[in-house]
């Protein structure tokens, strides 16, 4: 009973801080552009406003269009329950690493299906891009997680984290590669191709409004937090006392998001073929790293 309560408390805490982290990112981005920037709680204000607004449905929508935001949100919350965040306790069972990959991949498939079902042309372009990015980025993510699993010879996330104490070559390279893949998966600036705002007017999100848009935005923030959490878990040492764990987790999370934002301000958007080319070059590297991990180096 306690176990479930702790996991639920964990999820609730992450649900609360996810928009705040985004608010901090917006503030930092504003400061880098010499602006004053929105208040830190601005993302929360936006979300609350969106949740209180009705959603308009298109004329030619189908069921997938209506329910896919909620499926994605459920996927993300479930995935957050799988990874240890503020505490070491998480929903842990044999093979949960595969479930994690499945949840991340299926959420982006559902996003594409939902936006195609809206019947909007721009949404279709966005979905097209989303799928072509997701096929590669989810493959990369699966390969990286497979590398971790091979390194620790385990299929449970609890026994994989943290990856670092044996300072092997493959562990360090795979962490760096995972950071890059997480960056791509966050829809950060050079890779925000599916929802390119000035180009294809928000792409996949174009037909969503009100509540469903709020849920989709919320699950995007949750996805960022999820990927950050995995990175933090990979490098956070195991011997930190339990009381200090939430604080150190939050500091690491903040440091990661700040780094990512600083990187984001550098770049303009890539073309879809450039992004795909970039990811294609990563596949052989990852396969080599996987092999090295298999050899225990």
């Amino acid at each position, binding site marked *: 009973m306690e176990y479930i309560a702790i996991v639920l408390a964990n999820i609730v805490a992450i649900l609360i801080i996810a928009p705040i982290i985004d608010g901090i990112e917006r503030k930092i981005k504003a400061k*880098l552009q010499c602006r004053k920037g929105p208040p830190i709680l601005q993302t929360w204000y936006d979300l609350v406003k969106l949740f209180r607004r009705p959603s308009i449905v298109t004329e030619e929508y189908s069921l997938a269009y209506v329910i896919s935001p909620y499926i994605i949100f459920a996927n993300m919350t479930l995935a957050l329950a799988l990874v240890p965040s503020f505490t070491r306790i998480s929903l842990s069972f044999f093979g949960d690493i595969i479930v994690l990959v499945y949840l991340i991949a299926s959420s982006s498939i559902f996003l594409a299906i939902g936006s195609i079902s809206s019947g909007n042309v721009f949404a279709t372009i966005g979905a097209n891009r989303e799928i072509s990015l997701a096929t590669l980025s989810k493959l990369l993510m699966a390969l990286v997680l497979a590398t971790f699993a091979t390194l620790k010879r385990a299929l449970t996330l609890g026994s994989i984290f943290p990856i670092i104490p044996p300072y092997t070559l493959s562990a360090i390279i795979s962490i760096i590669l995972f950071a890059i893949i997480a960056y791509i998966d966050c829809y950060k600036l050079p890779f925000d191709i599916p929802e390119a705002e000035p180009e294809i007017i928000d792409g996949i999100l174009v037909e969503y409004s009100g509540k469903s848009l709020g849920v989709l935005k919320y699950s995007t923030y949750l996805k960022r937090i999820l990927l950050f959490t995995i990175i933090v878990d990979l490098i956070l040492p195991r011997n930190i006392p339990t009381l200090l764990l939430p604080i150190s987790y939050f500091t690491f999370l903040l440091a990661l998001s700040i780094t990512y934002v600083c990187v984001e*301000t550098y770049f303009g958007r890539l073309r879809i073929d450039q992004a795909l080319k970039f990811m294609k070059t990563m596949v052989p590297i990852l396969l080599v790293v996987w092999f090295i991990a298999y050899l225990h180096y």
Partner: protein
Amino acid sequence: MKTPRIDIFKEALKTGVVTKKYPFEPVEAPEGFRGKPSIDFEKCIGCEACVNICPPNALSVEIDTKRGIKRVMLFLGRCIFCGRCQDVCPTEAIKLSREFELSSLNSKDLYQIVELKMAKCKICGRYYATVRQILFTAKNVPKDQRPLLLLCDECRSKVSAKHISYARW
């Protein structure tokens, strides 16, 4: 010289925040800014010079022939702030201020209306010009010609034609 990208941070730290606090502290429009045109009601003589020159017809005029009232209306919603009315006004009654906070929730609030009383022609009894306009014109007219100003255009031309023909004869 190609600047390295790390300079973004240096630049941001050096510049600081450039944002103005506008809605919470007042902002003065620069000198020579063409803002809201406002009609000085005491000076307006209803001569229609501004109405004729206004490019988007933001200034319009209505003549109420029953009550003998000339209504000059300025609709700020259509005004393009060109300042030609200011140039053409003989009494400097209309002037462009530097005020720019004109937003309103109701388009009726964007109207400025001046109603001026008109004078009746002494012969035919028609309303023909505002009293103020007649007085303004009278100052620039020799004293012996002034009584002609009390007549409407048609009557005046008839009367003056009569004067001329008498003089010839």
